[in-house]
């Protein structure tokens, strides 16, 4: 961040009519105000852009055209939707608990926005480099669960309550594999700070983590999809079963807040995945350019980061367009009986591999070098990849034998009925 602030300060120093505090502090103030603007402006903007994108992509998947009337490619449709939402009547049902009912959507949206504090958007641009970075992400996610529960219970509607019940079951169970996969990342990176994680993904240090840890990425992304309530994990909203779940009673701006929460959550998940597994802003020439001209390097990094984020967003919409919804028991079985054991097993093997390749160092106590420390980052990456593939192979064997047994039971039951 310092190079940009220095640049701003130099710029201000050359402006003779600047009436306000001395350039360095003024630069910092401008920077902070700008950051706040980005943080609060990103949410509605993301919603407007992403709804349009989603309608277009889903339409293409379903062999339709999608919105095409308002503006070129129909992109004004999203603006029209936003205006419609703003002007609609904002109702509160008669039997609702007013305060929690109105607080719920805000809590959902805020918990999604808070995640961006630890995501580096470009080299040198990060809200706050916490040393508990990815742990913080799990923590602020908890507020979203609370908001969902408040919204569902206070609406005083049986569908909303059913949605809230499902939400708790789903969000709490998928928090566990997500946290475990983040712990795996922390073990491999040796840190929870997002900046260190990006630093460790330089090619010299072993490259992107998606190459080293495909299973961890898969668990993280699937659990994250469940946390964002996206299809195929959207059964807490399930418009065709329980109308809209916890937000059935919301209208107007509060409904928009719930939707903003969902889309910003998507964006946060995509941003996190890009940061942790695809190296964030890393890409060709970013660092060289950043060292020469900070602004241009930062912009290039931002472009790479946004490209990766859009890739993940596209994958999420693709999922929604292709996969049918889970049933509640399938959903819980998938979380507890497949993702959780898989992520735990993966954590164990990854920790073992990391120990083998550990360079000597101190972390509270002196750590001896591992037996294979000489192979460096690329050695660690390939060993982790092999161990991940092994885990995937064993998991697929286990799933296969389980599926066979359950199929056998079904066949036996059918034979028993017939006989």
């Amino acid at each position, binding site marked *: 961040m310092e190079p940009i602030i220095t640049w701003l300060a130099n710029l201000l120093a050359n402006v003779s009519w600047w009436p306000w505090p001395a350039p360095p502090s003024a630069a910092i103030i401008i920077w902070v105000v700008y950051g706040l603007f980005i943080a609060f402006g990103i949410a509605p903007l993301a919603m407007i852009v992403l709804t349009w994108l989603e309608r277009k992509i889903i339409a293409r998947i379903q062999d339709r055209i999608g919105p095409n009337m308002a503006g070129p490619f129909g992109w004004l449709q999203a603006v029209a939707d936003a205006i419609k939402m703003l002007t609609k009547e904002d109702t509160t049902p008669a039997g609702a608990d007013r305060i929690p009912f109105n607080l719920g959507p805000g809590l959902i949206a805020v918990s999604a926005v808070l995640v961006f504090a630890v995501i580096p958007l470009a080299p040198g641009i990060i809200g706050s480099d916490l040393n508990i970075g990815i742990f913080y992400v799990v923590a602020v996610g908890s507020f979203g669960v609370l908001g969902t529960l408040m919204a569902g*219970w206070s609406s005083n509607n049986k569908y909303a309550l059913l949605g809230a019940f499902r939400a708790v079951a789903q969000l*709490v169970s998928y928090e566990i594999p997500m946290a475990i996969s983040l712990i795996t990342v922390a073990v491999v990176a040796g840190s929870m700070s997002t900046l260190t994680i990006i630093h460790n993904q330089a090619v010299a240090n072993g490259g992107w983590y998606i190459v080293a840890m495909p299973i961890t990425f898969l668990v993280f992304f699937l659990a994250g999809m469940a946390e964002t309530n996206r299809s195929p994990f959207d059964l807490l909203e399930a418009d065709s079963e329980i109308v809209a779940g916890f937000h059935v009673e919301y209208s107007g701006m509060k409904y928009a807040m719930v939707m903003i929460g969902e889309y910003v959550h998507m964006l946060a998940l995509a941003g996190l995945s890009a940061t942790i597994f695809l190296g964030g802003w890393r890409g060709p020439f970013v660092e060289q350019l950043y060292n020469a001209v900070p602004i241009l390097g930062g912009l290039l990094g931002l472009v790479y980061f946004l490209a990766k984020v859009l890739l993940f967003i596209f994958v999420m919409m693709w999922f929604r367009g292709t996969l049918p919804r889970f049933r509640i028991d399938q959903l819980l079985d998938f979380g507890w009986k497949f993702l959780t054991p898989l992520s735990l097993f993966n954590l164990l093997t990854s920790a073992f591999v990391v120990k083998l390749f550990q360079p000597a160092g101190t972390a509270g106590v002196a750590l001896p070098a591992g037996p294979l420390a000489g192979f460096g980052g690329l050695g660690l990456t390939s060993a982790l990849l092999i161990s991940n593939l092994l885990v995937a192979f064993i998991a697929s064997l286990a799933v296969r034998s389980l599926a066979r047994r359950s199929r056998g039971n079904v066949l036996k039951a059918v034979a028993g009925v017939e006989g």
Partner: protein
Amino acid sequence: MTEQIVFFIFTIMVLGGGLGVVSTKNLYYAALFLSLSFSGMAGYFIMLNAGFLAAVQIIVYVGAIAILILFAIMLSRKVMTTNEPQTNKQNWLALIVTPLLYLTLIFLVVKVNWPVSSAAPALDVLTQMGAQFLGGYLIPFEVMSVLLLVALVGAIILARDVEKGRE
């Protein structure tokens, strides 16, 4: 000065939430007040150079315990939404005893000359904690994990519907 203002804001959250928990009739509100109080405490921990503990506080208390309590309230909601008084027969006794306890403890807090150190706070809190968990406090740490496992299994067995469990 800023620190004091922040301290007061968090104090209002913590004590206001606590007061709400013990005074409101509606248990659903009580659980929401409880999570407000927990969030304020996470703020305290950040002020006290314990950022990791603040995140743990949010994850465990707001994300798990408050949610569990809300869930239990929803599951037994027939008896939760009554408007009859929520206090029992020994309410007046508690109203006498707890202020007395509070005054005694405050007396102790003010009287004792605490050996406050002016050293700078530790910077490597996370690494130190990790080293302590896997060093000096290894056995309590392992016992804690066994305790959590036992609690997990025990909670499932207790809460399972016996009629359905038999089939």
